C-alpha cells in the first residue's frame, strides 16, 4: 500500500542495435533523475545471463519493488525479464518495458539525437506506469483429460481416432444415425480406386475397435458450460419413439467438425428442379455410386446421356444472385475427377465444362490437363450460362470470353457443380460455444494463417469445412491438426492463464451490459445477484485481455489489469507533461 516505490531502470545496448543510434548513457543519466528511480544502469545485452544477474542483484541490494527495462519489443523479451523478477522474489508483473529498439533506433537511424530524446520519453512513460503497477497472479485451472468431438464426418473421425490412439477419452457426437458425413457421397476419389465410403470405413473400424472412443449417434450437443480445461456438456440422444436421453459430459477441450451442406440451387437456378435432366454434382456422384439408385449406371432423367454439360461455380463466386461470394475450392477438381471417371467408363460421351476460372491448384492441375486431353470442351464464362430445358435435350448457352462469342450447346443432361455452404447447425453451435464466424458464415479461426484450427475461444478447436471449403484430404489433415491442439491441452493436469485480463470492480459496476455485448471472446456475462442487481462477470479463462470492455465501460468499473486507466493515463500525462 503505502510502501515506498523503488524503481530500477535498465537500458540495453542490444549490441549496436540500440547503442549505435541511441545515446544509452544519456538515457541512463536521465532515468536517474526520474522520481522513485533508485538505480539506473546500462548493459550491452540485458537479456544475457550477466544482464539478468545484474538485475537480480540490484533487486536485492536496492530493495527494488519495480523494474523497468528499456530494450527491444516486449513481444521478444518481456517473458524473460518477468522470469528474472520472479527469480528474485518479486512479483513478475511489477515489470515494465520500454521498446527503444523498434521504436527508436530501428526507425530513426538517421537522427541520433531525436532517437535519444524519444528513448528518454519512452523511459519516462514506463517509469510513470511502473509506479502504479500492481502484483498479479497467474490464473490456474484443472484439466479434464477428455475431448468432445462434434460431428462425425471425416475431419471429426480423424480427430477422434488420433486422440484415442494418443490415449484420451473422446466423445464423438453425431447428429445423424451414421458416421461419415458428406464424404460417403463423394464416390471414387481422384488418383485412386478408393471411394469416400472406403475412407470413412477404414477410420470408423479403427475407432470402433478402441475402447477410449465413445460414439453418440442421433445425438446433438444441447448445452456447453465452463471453459478451457473444464467444459460441462449436455448431449441429447434421440432414442426412437420420440424418446430422448440426456448425457452429461465433462471434457477439457472441444473439437468442432460440423462440416458443410452442399449448396442447394434455387428452383429454376440453371433449370434446377424444372427438369430431371439437371442434377447437382453431389447427385451425380450418388448416381455413379455402386450403391446408388442406378447401381453406378449413368442415367439422368431416365436416359444414358450422350452429352453432358457441367456448370461450375454453382453457388460460388457470386455467379447468381443466390450464390456466395467465395470460392468453394473443391468443385473444379471434383467435377474434373468425376468427368474423367465417366470418360473412362463411357468414352463416347461428349462433355462440356462451363467454367468461370479453373482452380485446379497444386498437383490437381493434372486433372485439368487430363480432361483437356480427353477432349472435354471448356467454355469460359463471365456471366452465368443460361439453361433452357427443351423436350428432348437441354440447351446451355453462354458467352465464351476466350472467343468472345455466344455459344449454345444442346446436351442430354446438365450437372451443376454446387459448392459448399456452412452447415445448418453452424449458427446454433456458434452461439452455444460462443465462437465467432466470418462474413461468409463459416466459423472463424483465431488467426487465418497461423492458427487455422483454433477458435477465438480457448479450448475450442475447428476441423474440416466448418471453417471454410476444403477437399477431403485437407479436411482429414485439419482433423489431425485440431486433435494435436486439443492434445496440447488435455495432456496437462492444469493450465495457466496470463493474469493480464479484464476485471470488474463490483462496487462500481451498474450492470449496464455494454461490455458483455462487445466482448469478442464471449468472456463476459451479466449476473443477477440475490438483491436483483445486475453485475458484469469476466470468465478469466476466456478473457484474452484485449481491453475492448475496459475501453467501452461507461462507468470505469471494468479495468484491464496491467493497463488500468490510471496506469495508461499516467503514461499519457508523462508523454505530454514531462517530469
Amino acid at each position, binding site marked *: 500500500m503505502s510502501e515506498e516505490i523503488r524503481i530500477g531502470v535498465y537500458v540495453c545496448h542490444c549490441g549496436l542495435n540500440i547503442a549505435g543510434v541511441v545515446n544509452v548513457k544519456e538515457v541512463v543519466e536521465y532515468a536517474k533523475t526520474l522520481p522513485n528511480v533508485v538505480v539506473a544502469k546500462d548493459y550491452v545485452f540485458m537479456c544475457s545471463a550477466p544482464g539478468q544477474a545484474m538485475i537480480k542483484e540490484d533487486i536485492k541490494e536496492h530493495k527494488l519493488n519495480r523494474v523497468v527495462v528499456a530494450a527491444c519489443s516486449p513481444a521478444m523479451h518481456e517473458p524473460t525479464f518477468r522470469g528474472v523478477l520472479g527469480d528474485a522474489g518479486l512479483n513478475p508483473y511489477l515489470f515494465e518495458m520500454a521498446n527503444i529498439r523498434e521504436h527508436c533506433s530501428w526507425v530513426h537511424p538517421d537522427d541520433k539525437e531525436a532517437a535519444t530524446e524519444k528513448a528518454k520519453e519512452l523511459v519516462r512513460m514506463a517509469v510513470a506506469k511502473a509506479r502504479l503497477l500492481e502484483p498479479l497472479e497467474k490464473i490456474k485451472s484443472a484439466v479434464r483429460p477428455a475431448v468432445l468431438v462434434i460431428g462425425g464426418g471425416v475431419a471429426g473421425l480423424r480427430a477422434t481416432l488420433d486422440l484415442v490412439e494418443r490415449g484420451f477419452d473422446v466423445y464423438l457426437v453425431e447428429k445423424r444415425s451414421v458416421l461419415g458425413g458428406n464424404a460417403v457421397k463423394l464416390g471414387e476419389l481422384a488418383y485412386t480406386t478408393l471411394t469416400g465410403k472406403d475412407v470413412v470405413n477404414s477410420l470408423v473400424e479403427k475407432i470402433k475397435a478402441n475402447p477410449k472412443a465413445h460414439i453418440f449417434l442421433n445425438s446433438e450437443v444441447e448445452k456447453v458450460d465452463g471453459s478451457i480445461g473444464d467444459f460441462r456438456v449436455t448431449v441429447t440422444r434421440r432414442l426412437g419413439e420420440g424418446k430422448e436421453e440426456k448425457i452429461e459430459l465433462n471434457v477439457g477441450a472441444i473439437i468442432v467438425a460440423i462440416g458443410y451442406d452442399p449448396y442447394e440451387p434455387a428452383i429454376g437456378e440453371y433449370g434446377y428442379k424444372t427438369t430431371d435432366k439437371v442434377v447437382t454434382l453431389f447427385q451425380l456422384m450418388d448416381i455413379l455410386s455402386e450403391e446408388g439408385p442406378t447401381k453406378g449406371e449413368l442415367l439422368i432423367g431416365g436416359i444414358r446421356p450422350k452429352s453432358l454439360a457441367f456448370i461450375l461455380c454453382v453457388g460460388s463466386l457470386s455467379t447468381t444472385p443466390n450464390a456466395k461470394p467465395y470460392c468453394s475450392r473443391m468443385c473444379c477438381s471434383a467435377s474434373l475427377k468425376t468427368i474423367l471417371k465417366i470418360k473412362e467408363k463411357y468414352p463416347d460421351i461428349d462433355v462440356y465444362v462451363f467454367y468461370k476460372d479453373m482452380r485446379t491448384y497444386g498437383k490437381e492441375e493434372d486433372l485439368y490437363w487430363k480432361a483437356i486431353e480427353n477432349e472435354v*470442351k*471448356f467454355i469460359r464464362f463471365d456471366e452465368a450460362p443460361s439453361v433452357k430445358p427443351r423436350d428432348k435435350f437441354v440447351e446451355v448457352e453462354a458467352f465464351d470470353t*476466350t*472467343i468472345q462469342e455466344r455459344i*449454345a450447346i444442346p446436351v442430354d443432361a446438365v450437372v451443376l457443380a454446387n459448392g459448399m455452404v456452412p452447415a445448418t447447425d453452424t449458427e446454433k453451435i456458434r452461439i452455444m460455444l460462443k465462437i465467432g464466424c466470418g462474413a461468409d458464415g463459416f466459423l472463424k479461426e483465431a488467426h487465418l494463417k497461423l492458427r487455422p484450427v483454433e477458435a477465438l475461444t480457448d479450448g475450442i478447436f475447428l476441423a474440416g469445412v466448418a471453417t471454410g471449403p476444403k477437399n477431403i484430404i485437407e479436411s482429414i489433415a485439419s482433423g489431425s491438426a485440431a486433435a494435436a491442439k486439443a492434445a496440447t491441452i488435455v495432456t496437462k493436469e492444469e493450465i495457466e492463464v496470463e493474469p493480464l485480463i479484464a476485471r470488474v470492480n463490483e462496487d462500481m459496476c451498474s450492470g449496464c451490459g455494454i461490455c458483455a455485448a462487445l466482448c469478442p471472446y464471449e468472456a463476459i456475462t451479466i449476473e443477477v445477484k440475490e438483491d436483483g442487481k445486475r453485475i458484469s462477470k469476466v470468465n478469466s479463462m476466456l478473457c484474452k485481455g484485449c481491453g475492448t470492455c475496459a475501453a467501452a465501460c461507461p462507468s470505469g468499473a471494468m479495468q484491464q489489469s496491467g493497463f488500468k486507466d490510471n496506469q495508461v493515463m499516467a503514461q499519457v500525462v508523462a508523454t505530454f507533461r514531462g517530469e
Partner: protein
Amino acid sequence: MSRTVALLLKGEVSSILKSLGARNLYKCYQCGTCTAACPLSEEVTASFRKAVKYAQLGLEEKIAADPAPWLCYACGECSEMCPKDAKPTEILAALRRYSIIKYDWTGFSKRFYLSKTFELMSIAILSILTALIVYLFKGPVITERVDLSAFAQPTVAIANIIVFGVLSLILLINIYRMYKFTTSQSSSSGKLPVSTYIAEFIKIIPYHFLTQRLMARCRDGKYYYTIHLLLFYGYAVIFVHHILRHMLLPLISPTLHLNEVASSIVGISAFVALILGSSLAIYGRIKKSTIIWEYSHPTDWVFITLLWLTSITGLLTDIFKYSGLPLPTYVTFTVHLMFVVPLLVLEVPFAKWSHLAYRPFALYFNRLNEIKQLRYKT
C-alpha cells in the same frame, strides 16, 4: 453485337482435324502464347489461339471464316514457346487443310485429304488416263529428229485449254466460297463500296502473291523463304512459259515462236529451281529438321513427290530434246505428263497448292473485314 453460334458436329470436326495433323489439338489451355509469339502478329490482326479454340470446340463455320490459318507461315515459333506442347504450328496447318476441304464445293478435297487410298487411286487413275490419252491421241512419232510438238499436238493444246479452264473455274468458285464464309462470320454486317474492294485487291493480291513477303518476317525465315521462292518462281516461270509458248503465241499466230535457246534456258533453269527446292523440302521432311517439317501429312508427301517427279521428268525431257534423242524424249515427256496432270488437276484446286491462291486472298478478305469493322464500329 454478339450472335448466338450453335455448336455443331460434336466430335466429327475434331476427329477430322486430328487426321489432318492437329495431333496435339487437345492439349491447348488457351493461354495466348502462340499469338503473342508469332512474328506476324505485329502486322496482321489474327488470333491463332482463337483458331485453336475454334478447332477444339469444332466450330466449323468459324474455322472456315478464320483468316488466321492462312496468315501462318509455319515458322514454328509458337510451337517452340507453347507451354502445353500443343504444337499450334501443326494445328494451323491442319486448319488450312480443313479450310481447303470446306471451301471445295465438289467434296473432292475432303475425300482426297481423308483417304490415302482415294488419294493414291486418283493420282494413279489420272496418270494412267494421261498415258492413255497420250497414247491414243499422240501425233506422229518422228524418230529422225526430236519433234515434240508433232508428237504431242494437238493433244496437249486441247488438254491445256480444258484443264486450264476447268481448274480456274473450280478455284475461283472456291475462293468465292472462302469469301462467303469470311463475311458470314464477320461481326459487322455493313457494306463497302466497290472501289474499296478494287483498291484493296490491287494493293494486296499481286504484292503478296508475288513476294510472299510475310513469310520473310518469320523467324529464321530466310532459308525457308528461299526454298519457298525457288518453288514458287520455278512453278510460275514454267507456268507462264508454258502458257506463252503453247497457248498464247499459237493463238495469236501459228508462226510466232519463242527463241528456242532462250526458251530452253528459261525452262531448264526453272526446272532446276523446282528440283532444288523440292529436294531440300523432301530432305527436310525426312529429317524432320525443324518444327515446320516435323509433321508431314500424306498429302504433303504426295505433293512434294509429284512436284519433284514432275520437275525431274520435265528436265529430262528437255535434256533429251536438246540432245536430239527422239524416243527418250517422247517417253520421258509422256511420263512427265503422267505427273504433271495429277499435280495440276489435284493439287491446284483441291489440295496443297491451292494455298498459293488462298493465302493472298485470306489477307485480302481479312483486310476488307478490318475496314468494315473500323467503319461500322459501334
